[in-house]
């Protein structure tokens, strides 16, 4: 049942915060591709709340084209302009949903200036 998985994500996020273990963070990354909308949302929120700690994991996902376009949105939410140039090439992606997400992500960076 998704509720137990959701509680698991909360505990995973706490354990990740306490230990810094990347495999715990990757559990949240994997949950972004869940078929359950609630789990995807919870994972996304917990990753953004983790701030800088989530950035290398999301960059890793971006390079593997995992969970696009959500990964692009989350990187913009973190707001670190270092990743802006990594997002830029996706704005002309062959997948229109990915390209649009990248353009929106770049607009979020722009609005933060």
């Amino acid at each position, binding site marked *: 049942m998704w*509720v137990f998985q*959701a509680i698991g*994500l*909360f505990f995973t996020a706490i354990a990740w915060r306490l230990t810094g273990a990347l495999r715990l963070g990757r559990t949240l990354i994997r949950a972004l591709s869940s078929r359950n*909308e*609630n789990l995807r*949302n*919870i994972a*996304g*929120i*917990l990753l*953004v*709340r983790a701030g800088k700690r989530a950035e290398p994991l999301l960059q890793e996902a971006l390079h593997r084209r995992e969970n696009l376009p959500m990964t692009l*949105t*989350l990187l*913009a*939410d*973190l*707001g670190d302009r270092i990743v802006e140039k990594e997002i830029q090439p996706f704005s002309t992606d062959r997948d229109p949903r990915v390209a649009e*997400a990248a353009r*929106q*992500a770049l*607009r*979020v960076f722009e*609005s*933060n200036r």
Partner: protein
Amino acid sequence: MTLPGAGGDSHTYILQNVRPDLYKQPDRFGWSGGYSDAARNLAGEDLVQWVNQRREQGLDLITHSHGGNVAMQSTQVNTGLTVGELILLSCPVHIPKYQPNFGMITKRAVSIRVHLDLVILADRGGQRFSLPQITENVLPVWFDHSASHKPEIWQKYNVPAML
């Protein structure tokens, strides 16, 4: 009438069964669904621009999750949005950061939510509005943030009667 923060099955269901005047053109409003204030503020400005370009001021808005906060932001920005009815489905409560300018709402604001929404818990938002101008409706459903936009939940608990 538009749906920031909700789409797909819920849009089709509402259009066919609840509000035949629901906006149905292919250019309907959408936003990134981002989890940051920056993404929501940007979406609020985009919504104002979208409405003004179509000269559709006074729309009823059906929103889900932070789409509700986007709509509220759009009533606060300069030359803000005039809204008819504001319907907030499972909206995370972040007052005073996000609250409507009630002077810009010409009909009423309605909140429809579930018990102990786990997505709102993760978001550290409040579960209910305590503003007297917003009518609260709590569905007999626990934890499920997405329940409030599911057609089967609307049918089972007669959500259209709450609008």
